[in-house]
């Protein structure tokens, strides 16, 4: 799955984009966020901000932790938007 990061999350992790091999047990958005937290200190710190980190799956906002990752090829992680 392609994982993309924006704004201060991109800066903190120092990753703009990566191709990740997810464990087979990662089936929902909740699983994906838990897996991210397990990837080391910086990931744990960033993804501890549960109310701040927003997610888009296949370029659509998703906030239901039970949402399935089936068919998802791209997940993006970012803080609240400040456009306009």
């Amino acid at each position, binding site marked *: 799955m392609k994982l993309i990061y*924006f704004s201060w999350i991109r800066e903190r992790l120092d990753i703009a984009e990566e191709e990740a091999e997810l464990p087979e047990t990662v089936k929902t958005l909740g699983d994906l966020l838990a897996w991210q937290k397990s990837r080391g200190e910086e990931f744990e710190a960033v993804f501890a901000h549960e109310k701040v980190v927003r997610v888009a799956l296949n*370029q659509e906002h998703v906030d239901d932790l039970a949402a399935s990752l089936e068919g998802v090829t791209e997940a993006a992680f970012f803080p*609240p*938007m*400040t456009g*306009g």
Partner: protein
Amino acid sequence: MSRITPDIRIQSADFDVAAEIAKLTDGRSDTGAVVTFTGLCRDEGGTLSALELEHYPGMAEAEIRRIAEEAVQRWPLTGLAAIHRHGRIAPGENIVLVVASSAHRQAAFEAANFLMDFLKTRAPFWKKEHLASGEEGQWVDAKEADDDAAERWKQR
């Protein structure tokens, strides 16, 4: 009335408000009202030298289109356009443009206002400040007031 197709553009180049109005109104005589909203970069009392707008290229246009389609369903519009710039933008320069046209004025006002509220809270853009002092600037924080502004459209 057949539904119009919103014109959505994400670009680094500036836009021309008059040209965008003309695109929606030229050659038709069923439009009685055009509302434009232009968002500009402020210098925050001289402390800011520029804003850097980061965006999510694939999603930005899709998300603004989803919001615009909702406006088209909700109000009897004769035209709707939204342009959002990205990249480095200096104080006084344009950031975003919304143009809504309709037979009647309240539909045009409300659709433009609605689109701006949701652009602020749902379009994947993030602003970083470049400071006039040369120091490293901050990422702009999302405002609760913007969430409240978007929320009010649900209560209708």
